[in-house]
Each structure stands twice: as structure tokens, then as C-alpha cells.
């Protein structure tokens, strides 16, 4: 039994006893960080306030000022993260980093570790290819005997479900790893991903000391996985270590843009985050190692007051789990200097916005926890940051609206500006100069992080080479900055809408993330998704132009982006443009300049598996009824599921429809009702093969006879 008191005492010793992880040093760092953050924020806000005061401040201008203060504070935080990250990267890297707590060549013995792949209707080929690449990477380390892999499926799509089973068995056979790679599908996917992981913990969790949580598209190399376990072994007061996953495998312009930003700017930001958060780090839901025992004891999510989506079940569980782990007395670290941890991102703006809708709801729910005195202040700061990630967009929109109203009111008054002296009188600035100073200062705060990331690469020959050399990486930064400026107003509009939807009580769905670029977003989808933004942009431009041409041009970067939203969305979703840039080594990432072995293995296996699944005798869930091996496999897995006993038998009429009308005539729900009942599965298999042709649907007759014609190479790998 692990109790909070024991852990707290042990943890204090660890935190203060290790020179690398000193608690005193953490306090000093936080003081420096907060002091810098406060000075910069106050300077920016005062400069703007003075700009307002000089022309007379009144009601609407107060609103503008308050909104500016919120926004400026928010961007100052990003600036400080990058600044301290940059400094920290130039300083002594062995201090204040969990990775420095053990030597590079540490041979600390490992402990039983489960690697979890929670899956929800994902692309089966990609998931299983990732599992295979991970397992092979572990085998190469020679330490694979300490790891078990669990594919934890919550898939509700019957085709995906059966393909997962087929691909899992194929994988285990290929790797001779039936006792190492396990598959489980939940019958009832309560509480989504957090419920999926909880279900694992309640059934198998106690067998392991650690779990490494992957996303369906995560990849981590063998040495990184082994290193994470060693770090946990050497630091018993640490409950969770989060890696900083870089994006990989993008094809589209948008995807490669995000990938470049995450890999290029990410380093200074994560280093800055680690600088001040230290042992009060955060959890991002995947690519992290967790100490299981305290997680089981302390990290079950509480129910929030009120109903969903405002309260109820916590959607974004990760931040809360990190806070609960910290409340239990365990440290939570970000390992910012451990590379080879990857994930994939959405290929286009619309898919990215769809994901953001879910995250927005989850982050807003954290508002309930902001005032809990039982949670560490730094954890509450993480909650606040997460909320501001979305609320910031609404504040930006309100700031621009308030500014527009202020201009409208001034223009309608017919008065002229009377400029008085403000506190900048000693500088003797005209209003134009004051405005330019304000704009310059804001630009510095906004763009310095990019400059610091650029300098970080320029100072490091190996790093700059991996990004394509100074010229190309400078070009990449320029392209990224320019495109982001066009995309930012669209995200502002999306996030503002999401936030209002959540406040009005509209829940988000739970969809598998799309990672396939395809041929880019179709025009119809782009127009449909951005139509509201186009209308907003046209109306807003019209109002601005009617009252003040100067203001119209000031506002144009935002309004023109909104008007052109479908075009921007369409262009950035283009895989051709992404590939063109890649050929010219623009937006290049280190993983593109030298593909990691784990990624090539993954892609190769994905292709093979996709071929097997797509060119088999039949596709998807029909295999579970017709194929003798898949039917047996599916039946056996159902029988091993403890929840199977309570499954209801599907109606006789439905079973008969399967045979007479064919599998494709049933909807998803009906298919699941059939597939979930073991005796029905066996009966249908028997009937399919034993009935005369005239008692079967044409589609079944064709599917069965396909076995004699099918190329042996295409029998799902089971040849």
C-alpha cells in the first residue's frame, strides 16, 4: 500500500537530495521567471494604457485596455518560456533536468513495464505497424523481456475491430510474441480513453511497476523506452515523466508546417517549461511513463459539478492526472532533452480544428479545478494555460471587436484627436512614434521566440544542418511565420466558436483522429467549414471601410484571412505543395533529413499490412463470419472477455438477414450486435459454409468462392 505521507517524505528527500533536481533551485528559478514575466507584462500593458490615456480613455477604451492586458500577459508567458528555454539550453544542462539524474550509460536494472496503445477506430495498419516497430526496437536493446505491450481497443466500428484482431494475430505470429503483445477490446467504452486505461489498470495494472502510455500514432525508440524506465527506477519519488514528442510523417503543407514548428520551436519552449515547472510538470496524455501503484491509488478522476460539457466526466484527463499525482506527493517531470519520441499530427486545418473542439471542451472543464487549494499552484497554472489556449482566441476576437467599436464611435462623433502627455513624456514621443513603439514591443514579444529558436539552431552546427542549413531554415521560418499569420485568424474564429458552443452546452463527439493526407481538403468541405468565417470577414471589412479606411487596412490581415479562409484551408491541405517544399528542403525536420529507423520500419510494415487487409479474400468484419481462422480467433477472444457472459443474443430475424440479404445490408449497430455474441458467430460460420448456394446471399457466395481464386500472398499473411 502506498500512502501519500510515505511518498511525500520520500519524495522530499529525493527532490532535495539530488543535485540535479534540487527543490531550492526550483524556487529560485520560479522567482526569476515570474519576475521577468511580470516586468515584461507590466511594461507592455503600461505602454498600451498610456497610448489610450493620451487620447482620453473612456468606457469602450477601458474594455480594449483590459482585453489587451489579458492578451499581452498571455503572449509574455510564451516569450518568457522561450527566453528561459534558450538560456537554459546554453547553460549547464546537467542541472534541473530529470535526464541528468542518471549517467548516460546507466545500467540500472529495469522493472516490469506495460506499454499501452489505446485505440479507437484508428487506422489499423498504422497502429499495428507502430506496435511492431516498437517491439522490434525493444528487442534490439536486449531488454524486451521487461516489457509487455497491450493494444487496448475501444473501437466501435465493426470492420476496424475485426481488422485489429487479424492484424494483432499476424503481428504476434510474425514476431513470435504472443506472450508479449496482448489485445483487449472493451465491450462498453465508458469514460473514453481514461476509462480504457483505467480498465487496463484494474485488470492487469498491478502486474507491472510502470506503464508507458502511447497514442495510437505514437512511436518511441527502444533506447528511449529503456531510458525512461531507468529514470523511474533511479528516482522512486517520481510518479510520471513526460517526453516532448515531435511530429513526424506529415505530407501536406499544413502538416509539414506544424511538424516544422513543433520540432524547430518546440525545443526552446519545452526547455523553458522545464526550467520553471521542474518537478511540478504536466502530463500530455501519451508518450509518457507512469508509476502504476500511485496512479491506481491516487489518480482516479473526480466527477466535476454540473453536467457535461461544462462539468461531469473530465474529458482532458491528462492535466488532472498529473495534478493528482503531484497531490499524492510524487514528482512529475518533463524530459525535454530525450529525443526519439514521436507522434503524428492532423493533415489539414479542418481536422486540426475538429481535434481542437474536443480539447477546447476538455480544457474549459479544468476551470472547476483552478481554485482547488488541494492542488499544487503550478498544476493550476497548467490548467490556466490550457484554458487560455482557447479562451485567448475569444479574448483576441473581443479585443478586435471592441477596437472596431471604439473606432466606429470616434468616427461617428466627428471629433478630432486631442493628444495629451502621458508618462512617456520624457521620451517626447508623438502619437505615431508611440504607436510604432507599442507595435515594435508587441512584435518583439511575439516574434522573439522564433528568433531564439533560430539562434539556437544557428549556434549549433549539427542542429542547423539537420534543418537544412542556415539559408533553408531561415526560409522555413519565414514561410512558417507568414503562413501562421494567415492561419491565426481562422483559428481565432474556430476557437471562439468552440468556446461559445461549450458554454451553451453543446458536447463534442469522440472521433478517431484523421492522419491521412489523401488528396487534400475538397473545395466543398473547405467552403462548408469556413463559410461563417467568410461572412464575418466580409461584414467586418465593410464596417471598417465605411467608418475609416485607415482602420480597414489595420484590420486587413485578420479580415482578409477570414474572407480567404476556404482558399487558405484548401491550399494548406495540399500534399503536392507539402512535397514540393520537401523536395526543396524547406520546412525540413531532422527526421526528414535522416529518417529514423523506427519510422522506416513502421512505414514499411504499414504498407504490408494495408495490402494484406485490403486485398484479402474479403474485407473487415465479414472475415469474422466466413474465414475459418478469423472466426475461431474472434470467437476465442470473445470467450476470453469477462464481459462476454452478459451479452444478449441477437434476434433470430437479424441472424437470418445476415445469411439471406448479406453482411453489407446490415448497419454498424446490427453488425456489432452479431459480432459480439460468441454462439451466433459460430453458428453463422457453420451456416455460411454448409448452406446450399440458393439459401445464401449472392455476396456470400462470391466471398466464399473467392478463396479458391485468391492469390496466396493475399491471405492476410496467414499463408
Amino acid at each position: 500500500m502506498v500512502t501519500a505521507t510515505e511518498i511525500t517524505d520520500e519524495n522530499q528527500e529525493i527532490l532535495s537530495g539530488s543535485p540535479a533536481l534540487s527543490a531550492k533551485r526550483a524556487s529560485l528559478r520560479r522567482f526569476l521567471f515570474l519576475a521577468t514575466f511580470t516586468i515584461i507584462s507590466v511594461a507592455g500593458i503600461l505602454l498600451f494604457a498610456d497610448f489610450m490615456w493620451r487620447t482620453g480613455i473612456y468606457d469602450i477604451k477601458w474594455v480594449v485596455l483590459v482585453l489587451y492586458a489579458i492578451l499581452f500577459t498571455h503572449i509574455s508567458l510564451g516569450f518568457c518560456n522561450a527566453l528561459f528555454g534558450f538560456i537554459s539550453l546554453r547553460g549547464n544542462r546537467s542541472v534541473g533536468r530529470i535526464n541528468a539524474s542518471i549517467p548516460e550509460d546507466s545500467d540500472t536494472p529495469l522493472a516490469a513495464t506495460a506499454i499501452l496503445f489505446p485505440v479507437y477506430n484508428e487506422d489499423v495498419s498504422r497502429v499495428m505497424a507502430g506496435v511492431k516497430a516498437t517491439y522490434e526496437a525493444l528487442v534490439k536493446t536486449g531488454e524486451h523481456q521487461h516489457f509487455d505491450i497491450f493494444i487496448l481497443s475501444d473501437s466501435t466500428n465493426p470492420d476496424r475491430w475485426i481488422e485489429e484482431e487479424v492484424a494483432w494475430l499476424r503481428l504476434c505470429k510474425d514476431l513470435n510474441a504472443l506472450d508479449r503483445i496482448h489485445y483487449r477490446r472493451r465491450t462498453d467504452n465508458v469514460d473514453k480513453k481514461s476509462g480504457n486505461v483505467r480498465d487496463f489498470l484494474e485488470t492487469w495494472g498491478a502486474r507491472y511497476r510502470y506503464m508507458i502510455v502511447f497514442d495510437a500514432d505514437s512511436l518511441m525508440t527502444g533506447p528511449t523506452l529503456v531510458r525512461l524506465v531507468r529514470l523511474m527506477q533511479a528516482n522512486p519519488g517520481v510518479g510520471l515523466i513526460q517526453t516532448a514528442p515531435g511530429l513526424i510523417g506529415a505530407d501536406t503543407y499544413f502538416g509539414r508546417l506544424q511538424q516544422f514548428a513543433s520540432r524547430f520551436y518546440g525545443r526552446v519552449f519545452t526547455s523553458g517549461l522545464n526550467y520553471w515547472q521542474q518537478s511540478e510538470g504536466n502530463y500530455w496524455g501519451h508518450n509518457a511513463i507512469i508509476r502504476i501503484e500511485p496512479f491506481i491509488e491516487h489518480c482516479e478522476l473526480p466527477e466535476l459539478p454540473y453536467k457535461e460539457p461544462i462539468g461531469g466526466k473530465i474529458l482532458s484527463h491528462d492535466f488532472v492526472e498529473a495534478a493528482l499525482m503531484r497531490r499524492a506527493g510524487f514528482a512529475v517531470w518533463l524530459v525535454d532533452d530525450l529525443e526519439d519520441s514521436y507522434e503524428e499530427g492532423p493533415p489539414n486545418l479542418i481536422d486540426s480544428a475538429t481535434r481542437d473542439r474536443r480539447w477546447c471542451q476538455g480544457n474549459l472543464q479544468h476551470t472547476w479545478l483552478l481554485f482547488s487549494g488541494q492542488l499544487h499552484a503550478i498544476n493550476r497554472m497548467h490548467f490556466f494555460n490550457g484554458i487560455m489556449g482557447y479562451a485567448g482566441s475569444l479574448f483576441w476576437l473581443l479585443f478586435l471587436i471592441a477596437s472596431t467599436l471604439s473606432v466606429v464611435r470616434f468616427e461617428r462623433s466627428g471629433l478630432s484627436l486631442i493628444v495629451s502627455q502621458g508618462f512617456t513624456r520624457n521620451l517626447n514621443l508623438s502619437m505615431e512614434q508611440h504607436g510604432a513603439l507599442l507595435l515594435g514591443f508587441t512584435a518583439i514579444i511575439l516574434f522573439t521566440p522564433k528568433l531564439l529558436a533560430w539562434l539556437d539552431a544557428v549556434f549549433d552546427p549539427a542542429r542547423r544542418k539537420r534543418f537544412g542549413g542556415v539559408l533553408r531554415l531561415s526560409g522555413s521560418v519565414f514561410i512558417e511565420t507568414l503562413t501562421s499569420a494567415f492561419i491565426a485568424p481562422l483559428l481565432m474564429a474556430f476557437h471562439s466558436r468552440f468556446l461559445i458552443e461549450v458554454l451553451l452546452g453543446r458536447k463534442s463527439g469522440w472521433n478517431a483522429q484523421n492522419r491521412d493526407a489523401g488528396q487534400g481538403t475538397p473545395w466543398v468541405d473547405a467552403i462548408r467549414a469556413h463559410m461563417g468565417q467568410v461572412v464575418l470577414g466580409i461584414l467586418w471589412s465593410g464596417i471598417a471601410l465605411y467608418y475609416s479606411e485607415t482602420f480597414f487596412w489595420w484590420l486587413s490581415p485578420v479580415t482578409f484571412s477570414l474572407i480567404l479562409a476556404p482558399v487558405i484551408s484548401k491550399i494548406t491541405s495540399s500534399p503536392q505543395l507539402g512535397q514540393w517544399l520537401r523536395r526543396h528542403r524547406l520546412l525540413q525536420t531532422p527526421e526528414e533529413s535522416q529518417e529514423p529507423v523506427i519510422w522506416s520500419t513502421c512505414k514499411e510494415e504499414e504498407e504490408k499490412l494495408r495490402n494484406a487487409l485490403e486485398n484479402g479474400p474479403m474485407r473487415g468484419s465479414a472475415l469474422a463470419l466466413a474465414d475459418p481462422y478469423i472466426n475461431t480467433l474472434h470467437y476465442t477472444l470473445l470467450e476470453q472477455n469477462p464481459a462476454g457472459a452478459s451479452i444478449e443474443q441477437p434476434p433470430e430475424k437479424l441472424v437470418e438477414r445476415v445469411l439471406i440479404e448479406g453482411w453489407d445490408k446490415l448497419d454498424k449497430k446490427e453488425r456489432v450486435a452479431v459480432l459480439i455474441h460468441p454462439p451466433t458467430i459460430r453458428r453463422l460460420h457453420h451456416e455460411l459454409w454448409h448452406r446450399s448456394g440458393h439459401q445464401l446471399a449472392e455476396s456470400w457466395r462470391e466471398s466464399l468462392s473467392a478463396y479458391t481464386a485468391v492469390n496466396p500472398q493475399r491471405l492476410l499473411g496467414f499463408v
Partner: protein
Amino acid sequence: MELPVDLVTPAVGGGKVDGQADFSAWDEAYRRVEAYFAALRIRNKLLLSTLVHRVLQKAAERQNAGEVGAPTEIAMDEADREVHQWFIQILDLDEEAGEDPVLRGRLSLLLADMPRQWQHEFLTDPPWPEPFVEAMRKSFLRAGPDFHLSQMRARPLELGPIPNLAGETLRDLDRKPHLRNILLFLFVIVGGFILFYLTR
């Protein structure tokens, strides 16, 4: 290797039309049994037709002996019986023990890599090569290790007075929808007024 036509001579009936119908029915039975063995990943054509031949011969004998049913049904039943008996033999199973030989046997075939390595041994009489028998008997499928149960329970978390008050207020408003609607109405009116005031 061709299946002799006289093998599938109809057991009953005799006219040309019936004979043609039975011929088609046995053709369907042939195709079905062949597809079934192909689905079990028998890729060797000689082996495949030998197995089909054997099964159909037994099925025809059963029909000639008076068994009622379509040739496909009888032939597939015969195919299943053959496979069932063979699994019992090679896996050395006790039929009384309750374990389903077909379930166990099919998975064993797959896991022992019969389709690739042991095609020529499938449905043959003993003795079989020792490595094949061993591979078949030791094959066993489990989706996961033994359970080690535990339970996660949420610990109480004090949210603080502001969230508690907010939660209580929202729940109250849900209980009093009229009050909620009035407040929403007031919110819109006040918002409109502020907008008017700021731009007047």
C-alpha cells in the same frame, strides 16, 4: 487429378432434367468444399483436389445410402467430420473433456504455421513428424496475461468555495428553468444596452 463423374451419380431420380440438376448440385458441393479447404489455406492444388475428392466420395456414399439433404450440406458435413476427427487425433484430445477440437485445432494449425510449413501433413493419417505434432499441441492463444485485479477509486477533491457556489447555482437554475430563461433574457437586454452605450 480429376474427380470421376460417376462418383456423383444421383442417388435418387433418373430423368435427364433431374440428372442435370444433381450434376449442378454436386458441382456446387465440389466448389464449396474446395473453397473451404482453400480457406484453411491449403494452397497445393494436388493436395486440395485429393482432399476434395475424398470428401465428396464419402458424401456421395452417404447420399447413396439414403441420407437426405443437398450435396453441399452433406459434403460440408463430411468435410467438417474429417477435420474434426483429424484434430482429435493429432492434438490427442479427449472428446469427453469438453474442449472443442475444431476451435483448438484451427488455431493450432495457424500458430503452428501449417499453411507454410506443414501443408502435406494436413488431414493425413499418422504418423506425423514430431516437430509438427509438438507445434500443434503446444499452440495456445491467450489475449492477455492472468488478471491481477485492483480498483481505482476517486479520492475526494475540495474544489473551493467559488466552484462549489457556481455548481450549486447552475444546478439551481436547471431546477428553475423559468428563472434561467429570465436571466438569459436579461443578459441579452443588458448586453444590447452596453453595446448601444459603447457605440452611441
